[in-house]
Every structure is written in structure tokens, then in C-alpha cells.
């Protein structure tokens, strides 16, 4: 199966010890998601710079997904609120740059959350398709 339709491109920021192993597990279980999903691993989701998110969207990614450490973070007990603060800051910057805040999503992905991750990717691509259609309508 190979779809000719260009698929929404998603950049995922994962975290080395929590969400990246979860994303790996989707591979271990031979689940499928779109080839338009690419992952850049980092140590922790609290360390994502909002400017990276905006940069990725300006360079051509249709959406950015932060696969956060969630409550399992081994570094910071307040990892989730910190990551949420990053998201908020990034969405403010996105609005300033005329980018819909809906192009950024975050969810905690645990080290065994393979199905969960694949579900998020499929949903996010659908949402991005819809967003694309809505934005085209407005133009």
C-alpha cells in the first residue's frame, strides 16, 4: 500500500528514557503509522525550546507533537506543568507568526504507550487535514 496523497508532516519531539522507548515499542510490535512522522529525541520534554517548534512549522512541518515524559519523568516531578508552559509559550509565538496553535499537540507517552502513540499520530494527521481544508476555505 502506498498512498499518493501527500500526508501531513509531523515532527515529534520524544524523550530518551520515557517516550522514545514507547515509540520504539510501536516498531517492536510492528504497528503502522505514516512515513510523514519523524522523531527527534531529547533528554526531557521540559527542555523543548518554543523556538524549535516555530522553526519546524516555518520550515514545512504541518504539525509538531511533543511526546512528553508525563508523570513518569525521572528528572522532574513537575515535568508536565513545565512542558505545558513550553507549549503555551510556543503557541503564543505561533499566533504571533500567523500559525494556528492547533498545529502543536502534546501528550504524555509512557515507555509502553505504543498503541497510544500510533493513535495520536493518526488523529493528529486527521486534525491537520481538516485544519488544512478549513484554512484553504478561508483563503
Amino acid at each position, binding site marked *: 500500500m502506498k498512498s499518493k496523497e501527500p500526508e501531513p508532516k509531523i*515532527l515529534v519531539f520524544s524523550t530518551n528514557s520515557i517516550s522514545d522507548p514507547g515509540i520504539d515499542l510501536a516498531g517492536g510490535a510492528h504497528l503502522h503509522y505514516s512515513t510523514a512522522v519523524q522523531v*527527534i529525541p531529547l533528554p*526531557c520534554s521540559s527542555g523543548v525550546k518554543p523556538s524549535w517548534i516555530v522553526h519546524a512549522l516555518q520550515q*514545512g512541518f504541518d504539525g509538531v507533537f511533543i511526546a512528553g515524559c508525563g508523570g513518569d519523568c525521572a528528572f522532574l516531578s513537575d515535568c508536565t506543568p513545565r512542558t505545558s508552559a513550553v507549549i503555551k509559550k510556543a503557541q503564543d509565538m505561533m499566533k504571533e507568526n500567523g500559525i494556528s496553535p492547533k498545529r502543536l499537540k502534546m501528550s504524555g507517552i509512557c515507555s509502553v504507550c505504543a498503541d497510544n502513540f500510533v493513535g495520536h499520530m493518526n488523529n493528529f494527521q486527521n486534525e491537520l487535514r481538516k485544519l488544512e481544508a478549513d484554512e484553504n476555505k478561508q483563503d
Partner: protein
Amino acid sequence: MKQRRIGVYICHCGGNISDYVNVQEVADAVKNDPNVAISRTHTFACSDASQQEMIDEIREQNLDGLVIASCSPKLHVFTFRGMAERADLNQYQYVHVNLREQCSWVHGNDKAGATAKGINILRAGIAKCALTKPLTAIRVDTKPRVLIIGAGVAGMRAAILLADMGLSVFMVEKEKEAGGWALHAGNMGPENQNGTDIAAGLLKRIQAHENIMLYTGAEVTGKSGSIGDFTVMARLDNNEEVSLNVGAIVVTTGFSPYEPKEGEYGWGIPGVVSLLDFRRMVEQSNGKLQHNGKPVRTVSFIYCVGSRQKKKKDCPDANTYCSRYCCSAATHTASQLGKLDPSVRQYHLFRDVRTYGALETVYEESRRDGAIFLKWEPKNPPVVEQKGGQLSVTVKDTLSGGDELEIGSDLVVLVNGMEPRENDALNDILKIPESKDGFYNEIHIKLRPVETVIDGVFIAGASQGPKTLAESVASSLAAVAKTGGLLKKGYVDLEPLVAKVNTDKCLWCDECLKACPYGAIEKINFGEKEVAFVIEAMCKGEGGCVPVCPHDAIEIEGYRDDQICAMIDASIKELETPA
């Protein structure tokens, strides 16, 4: 920017990658990159023969960077780091690309798409590699001394073994007496050893050991330093403060027994007791079990009290975990009771009997000793009431088709589980992350079960989750192995992938200091101004300080701003013009 000479190797992984990704096409796609000197494939990059070929090539071709696209980095980062070092290439100039778990295995239905994505993620890896610098591990000398916090059985076992290795051991115990909960456990299954005797035996060896200093009635009041060289302050029972200089800390602070809420399964009604209380009653009875001067004829046990709870309105802080030890302890107590007085009727109201492994024999023995088991479902929990001077326990027993039974009882024993010990002051000092359950969190439950993210601080025993005594000691011996290995070597090399401050941009505003829970940031004078300084050995490199810096002046080595932006640029470029 100076051009690099990067070696790029794409692994077939047998066919795990090459069946789904055209690896030759991937290798060819990057070979004209100006920073790439060599790009080729290997059937198994991790094999000795392939590693030797790569080592030869790194040397012969003077490569100054290495990118390997193969399985998940979790499997072979350290393999290839070691290989790079053997080839005299700095290990931090090697970048791993996850071409199997995050490409070939998830895109098995689309070889062209997987190949195009493979090229993109490889380009991102090359872009990152082109910006790597040689880094040196942070080497720290270690002091040959250990602090053990908590002198229960786990802590005492650890102390004796570490002292036997020739290390000096300090123990700080909050209670007036060492021994922990074993002191109160009475006879324990399966071998029927007495907890008080076990604790006393260990204490005797500790007191006789010239390498161990035990402080009871003492508390840790402060900690500074980092792995290999901590200074820990402790207040002794005479209020004197001592300063202990140690290379590592082992935390064996144990658990607290679950204290039932008022009214929970009749808690508060006379005759409703905890498991520990009941064990003491059995031990102290002289042949005949009595309560309030009356002989005890019927005892009902209710299992899973304070364990496996569901979060709901009247139970907001549910203990969702299984406390592991209670089924075995309660069934062992059943045998003790049966042997004391076989005429006592005993009913065990359980959810599941989790007497796992060899402890199954304890359960079997309890059935021979007269224990009768009734199974209840969480939606119909047993109800304990006082009726006419006796306790009445009502239960819907699913093993007899859900029949409602009322058991008149002289005693009701609540088989209460374990909870994390409340130790707020100590937690503020140690800063060990806690799990959702509130117990201390290890780095990885299977692969690094006694290490914490605080380098040099180890956890063991029930402080990291409910455990039987045997499991507690096993984990404490694991902590002994890690601590001994660390301190006997004399030094430790730490990852240099930590925060670094751009002193040109930094205008000291203390945001990074506030964001760092590890105390790794200090203010220093730098020329005319004040700037942030990173104490490398204390920095965890998680990057929590990076997005909060208003001056864009702090970043994590290995995940620098220029590297991440270059990765983004490299990975999107090719998506637009698929091969």
C-alpha cells in the same frame, strides 16, 4: 564552517531493515553531502567483523564523525561509542539514527515511503553530527565512604557487606532502635524466622564491625556535593550536628503500614485490628487467644485493605498498587493461629491470593491449618458492623455463587498493605523523584533497579515500592553491588551532555537557578558582570533550564540550539522532494 569527514554506515540488520527500506538507496542519497566522506551499508553493523572494518576505515580515512543508522539507540549506543573510542574517534562525535524501530518496522507496508523517510532521518543525524565537538567525560574522584539512611534489615544487610568490602559506612536511623519493621513482625514465613531475632543478629554484627558507625535517633538535615563527594549533615540524638563526607548514599527508609480510615471495614470498632496487631496477639498469647478477657472463637481476615484501591470521590489518594507481602503474611499468620489453637474458626475474605513463587507453600499450609477462603469483588466489599456485642462481617462470596454470608466474629483482622513513608524533610534534601504511587523511583525497573537520577544516590528495599523482606534484601544487595563498584574503582566518569552557559548572552536573572531542582546552577562573577555557572557533576542535562532562559543563553551539549535546528532543516528538506 570547516568541512567534516563523516563516516555513514547503514545497517541491514539481517533483513529487519533492508527488507523494508532500500538501504543502498539511503546510503547513496547522502554520499554527495559535503560533510560525508564514506557512506556504505553493513549486513550487521554490530558484528565484530563490521566493527573492525569501521574502525579501520575511521583510522585510514581520518574520519572525524560517525553516523550509524541501525536499531534503536537503546540497544547499541554504548557498543558504537566504545567502537569509536577504539578507533581514536571521540565517542561524542558519533550520532545514532533509529532506522529500525522508528522506520523499517513501522512502515513495512510502504518501502518507497520508508526509504524516503530513512533518508530524511539520516540527513538529520548527519546534520547533528556535523556540529558535534569532541567532549570529555567529567571525571570525579570518589570517597571510600557510604551513608546508609534507614537501619532496617535492608539497610543493615547493605552496611555489613559494604563494610566487608573495606568501605567506611555511616548509618543514620530516625528511630531510637535499629531494626525497622522486622522488630514488630514476629514470626515470618515461609521459614518461620522471627523478625526480632533477625534484626538483633544483624545489629550485633554491625556493632562489632569496626568500619560501621550507627547513629540512632538521628536525622539527615542537609546534603551538598555530588557523586563521589557528598557532604551530608545529620543531627544526632544529643542534638549535636555531624558532617559526613561520603562518596555515595544508599536510601533504605522502608515503608509505613497502611492506616485504615475511620470506619473503613469497621476500623475503630473494638475488635477490629491490623495484621501487625493480630500477629502480636498470637505471639503473646499463652496457648489460648483471648480478646478483652474472652476467648476468641472466630476470626475474619479482610485482605487488600489499603491496596489495589480505585480512585474515587471518597478515596482520592487511592493506593492502586498491590502491596505484595500481605497475602503471604496473612496466610502465614493463619497457620500460626491454626497451630496455636486448631479449634478457632478463621475466614479469609480475599480478592486474589497473591502468594507468588515459593510462597504458594505458605498458602497451601494455611488451608491445611484451617483457613477458609471467601472471595469478594471490589463492587461488593465486605461490611463490618457491631451486632449484639459481637462483630458481624457480611460478604458476598463469589466462590459460592455470590451468596451473602454473615460471619459472627470475635476479631476482624484488616490485612493492611504498605504505604510510602512520609519523609518530607528528607525528600526535600535528597530530591529523589517519586513514582505515581509515592515511593522512590528507580531509573529503570528492570535494567537499573536501584539507581536514581541523582548520581551516587541509590534506593533499596520497600522505600522504592512494597516488597517482602527477601525482596528487600535482594534489592539492598543490588545497591551494595552498585555502590561497591562505584567507590572501589576510585573515580567515576560522568556524561558531559550537560548544560552550558553562553557567557556573552547571559545577564544573570536567576531563571535557570529557579528551574534547576538539582542545585547545579551558581552565580559567578565573569569579568564585569555576573553570569550563571553550571556545576557539571550536579547537572542532569534534562534541559529544564533551556526554555526558561529569557536571553537564550543556556543549552544542553549534544542537544544544542544549532544542532536541533540543523536536524529540523535537514529532515524537512527532502520530504518536499521525495526520491
